[in-house]
C-alpha cells in the first residue's frame, strides 16, 4: 500500500538517473566512434592501440600504482597508531581537516615549496649540495599526489581497524605469535576491506588526475586524465577524448571488481 504512494517521489530521481547517469555514458560511447568530422568510425579505437597511447596508458597505470602504494605505506601505520591514541576521533578529525582545504590550494603550495628558491632547496644548499629542480619531475608529481590522497586512505583503514575486536589480537599474542605474525595473519586480513576501499578511492582518481600533472609535473607526466582534458579542451577532438574516457571507465570497472566488498547480505 505504502509503496504505491511514495512511488511518485521516484519520478525526479529517475529522471536524474536517466539524464545524468545513463545519457552521459551513452553519449561518451557514441562520441568515441566519431571522427573529427562527425563520421562514424572505429579509427579512435585503432589509435588507442597504437604504441603512443599504449605507452601513455601504461605509464598512467605505473604512476597510479606508485601513488597508491606509497599512500598505503604511509597511511596504514598512521591509521593504526591513531586507533591507539586517546581521543582518537579528535585526532582523526585533525587528519581530515587538511583534506577539506581546496585541492588546488594545496597543490599550489608545493609550487613554492619545491621551487628552485623554496625551503627544500634551501635545506639542500645548507647541506652543501647544489639546488636542483624538484618541480616538474616525476618525484614531485608522486609526492604531491600521495600528499593529497593520504587522508582518503586513512579514513577507511581507520574505520576497519577501529571495528577490529582487540581480543583477537590478544589471543594471537597469547598463543605465541610474534607481532609481525599477528599483523600478517590477524590484523591485516581482518582490515583488508578498509585497505581495498582505500585503494579504490586512490587508484581510480590517480589514473585520472590532470591538474596536478599540469601544475606540478609541468606536462612531464601524462595520465589518462590529462589526455582526456587535452583532447576535449585543447585539441577539441571529442571523439578521441571520449575513446580514452571509455577505456578509463573500463579500467574503473575492473578496479571496482577487484577491490569490491562482499555484499552485506542484502540488508538494503
Amino acid at each position, binding site marked *: 500500500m*505504502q509503496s504505491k*504512494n*511514495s*512511488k*511518485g*517521489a*521516484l*519520478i525526479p*530521481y529517475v529522471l*536524474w*538517473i536517466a*539524464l*545524468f*547517469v545513463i*545519457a*552521459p555514458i551513452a553519449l*561518451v560511447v557514441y562520441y568515441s566512434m566519431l571522427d573529427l568530422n562527425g563520421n562514424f568510425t572505429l579509427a579512435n579505437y585503432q589509435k588507442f592501440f597504437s604504441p603512443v597511447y599504449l605507452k601513455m596508458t601504461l605509464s598512467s597505470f605505473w604512476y597510479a600504482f606508485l601513488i597508491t602504494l606509497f599512500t598505503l605505506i604511509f597511511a596504514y*601505520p*598512521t591509521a593504526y*597508531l591513531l586507533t*591507539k591514541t586517546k581521543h582518537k576521533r579528535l*585526532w582523526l*578529525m*585533525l587528519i581530515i*581537516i*587538511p583534506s*577539506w*582545504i*581546496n*585541492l*588546488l*590550494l*594545496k597543490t*599550489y*603550495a*608545493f*609550487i*613554492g*615549496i619545491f621551487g628552485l*628558491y623554496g625551503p627544500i632547496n634551501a635545506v639542500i644548499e645548507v647541506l652543501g649540495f647544489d639546488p636542483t629542480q624538484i618541480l616538474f619531475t616525476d618525484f614531485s608529481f608522486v609526492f604531491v599526489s600521495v*600528499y593529497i590522497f*593520504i587522508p582518503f586512505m586513512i579514513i577507511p583503514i581507520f574505520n576497519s581497524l577501529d571495528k577490529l575486536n582487540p581480543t583477537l589480537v590478544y589471543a594471537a599474542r597469547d598463543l605465541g605469535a610474534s607481532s609481525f605474525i599477528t599483523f600478517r595473519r590477524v590484523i591485516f586480513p581482518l582490515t583488508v576491506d578498509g585497505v581495498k576501499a582505500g585503494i*579504490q578511492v586512490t587508484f*581510480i582518481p590517480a589514473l*585520472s588526475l*590532470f*591538474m596536478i600533472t*599540469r*601544475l606540478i609535473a609541468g606536462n612531464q607526466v601524462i595520465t*589518462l*586524465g590529462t589526455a*582526456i*582534458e587535452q583532447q*576535449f579542451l585543447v585539441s577539441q577532438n571529442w571523439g578521441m577524448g*571520449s575513446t580514452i*574516457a571509455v577505456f578509463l571507465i573500463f579500467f*574503473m570497472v575492473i578496479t*571496482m571488481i577487484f577491490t569490491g566488498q562482499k555484499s552485506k547480505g542484502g*540488508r*538494503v
Partner: protein
Amino acid sequence: MKNLSATSKAYLVFVFVVLYAPILYLIFYSFNSGGTMNSFESFTLEHYKAVFEDSRLIVILLNTVIVALLSGLIATIIGTLGAIGIISVKNKKMRNTLLSLNNVLIVSPDVVIGASFLILFTMIGIKLGFASVLVSHVAFSVPIVVLMVLPKLLEMNTSLIDAARDLGATKRDVLVRVILPYISPGIFAGFFMAMTYSLDDFAVTFFVTGNGFSTLSVEIYSMARAGISLTVNAISGLVFFITVLVVVGYYFINSRSKSTGTEGHR
C-alpha cells in the same frame, strides 16, 4: 590506556607536520610584504586587502557560494525524494539496480564526468556558464544526499508510519510530520556534504564552465598556472580559517546531539 612508544609518537607527529606544513607555509607567506614565497620581508595585510578590494574576485566568490547553496538545496530535494522512493521499491533486483546507478557518479573520475557533461550540455543546448555549472553540481551531489538519507530511512521503524495512518494521518501528513522529521539529521548531513562537494569541485566545473563564468577553484587554477601570486596565499588563509571554524562547529554540534541522544552513556 596503552601508551604509544616514542617511535610511534614521532611517526604520528611526522605525519601531522607533513599534512599541515604546506597549508601553514601558504598562510605564513600570505603576510609577506615581498612578492614571493621564498624570503619573508615584513609583516603585511596588503594581500588580504587586495582580496577584498578585487571586485572580480568577490564576484567569483559569490558565484561559488551561490552555486554551492543552490545546488545543495536542489540536490537535497531530489536526493531525499529519491531515497524515499528507493525504500518504497520492494522488488529487490530493481532496488539494487537503482542503488548501483546511484553510485556511478560517486566512483566515476571527475574528468569523465566533466567531459560527458560537456557533451550532454552541448547536445541539449544549455549554454555553458552559470546554468551548466549549477546543473552539473546538482547532478553529482544527488547521489551523496541519497547515501546520507538512506541509512536514516532504513533504521526508521515502519510501525511509526502504520501508527500515524491508523490515527488518520493523510499521506502528506505522514511525509511531513513523521518521515521528514525522523530523517532530518540525514537530510542536513546530505545538504552539508553536497555543499562541501560543490565548493571543492574543480575538475567537473573546469569542463562545463564557459568563458565569463568562474568559480573559486577554476580561478585559483588559472592564477596558479600563471605563477605565484600572494593573493592566492591570502585566499588560502581565509579558506583555512573558515574550514576550521566549520569543522569545529560541526564537531561540537555532532557530539552534543550524540550526547543528548544517548543520555545513558554520559
